[in-house]
């Protein structure tokens, strides 16, 4: 699926959550906290989004704990950051224009 602009909320928040190395469980918790429990990422949604973003080069594999074979950590890439910033610009435009309502 094409996740180009506008980004889905899930993609937007996952990108934000991997600005520092983060693993699956950490991403879900961070997104949950950031949105006050509004955006909940299901395991399947997260798994699909991570794989799509890995193949697009928006995020990369940061580390893999070989011993437990668990807890892969993911990190935002330069492309990912550009995509995110482009989206923020679009959102800012929305907010700026929204002010005309008053």
């Amino acid at each position, binding site marked *: *699926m094409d996740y180009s602009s*506008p980004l*889905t*909320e*899930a993609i937007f928040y996952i990108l934000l959550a991997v600005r520092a190395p983060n*693993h*699956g*469980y950490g991403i*879900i918790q961070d997104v949950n906290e950031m949105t006050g429990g509004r955006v*909940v*990422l*299901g*395991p*399947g*949604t*997260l*798994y*699909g*989004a991570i794989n799509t973003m890995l193949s697009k080069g928006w995020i990369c594999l940061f580390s893999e704990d070989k011993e437990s*074979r*668990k*807890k*892969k950590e993911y990190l935002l890439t330069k492309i990912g950051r550009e995509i995110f910033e482009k989206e923020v610009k679009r959102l800012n435009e929305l907010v700026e224009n929204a002010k005309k309502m008053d």
Partner: protein
Amino acid sequence: MLKFKLYYDKDAEEVWLREMSLKGWGLKKFFLGFYTFEPCEPGEYNYQIDLLDNWSGNKSDYVAFMEDLGVEVIEQWWRWVYLRKKAAAGPFEMYTDAESKIILYRKIINFFKIFLVIEAICFFMELTATIRTGNFVFGIFTVLLGAISFAILTVVWKCKWKIEQLRNEESRVS
């Protein structure tokens, strides 16, 4: 306990597995419509069914990822996987937004489409055999294959309907 059931609709199957769990029976194994249950605390687990992208794929990666999130892969049958999570560990829904749900239903449609084509071909072959020979054995198979084809067709329709509903939901919020 062993039960035999044929499900074409994974959403309905999930509901049934939850009901069984509430009655104190947790799914242990699945093969060709045969469900093996073992006793569990009533309501101990919630169940979800997922469809993997390909046959073999990177299954260990998937299993490890899910385990890290407190989700246990109980059984894999072909591309289908049965997952469970302790109810005490919070709600369990594999797909939480419209986009990823649509991707899943599209995957299911594509999965069943192949079978629909095969079943339909067999159905017409049996039908012509029945008409040509008048043999009632062919007739029985014709009815059987027709019923299976229709069941698969229903699933495809249902998935299409669900995608349509999700699209409407999406356009309302964005």
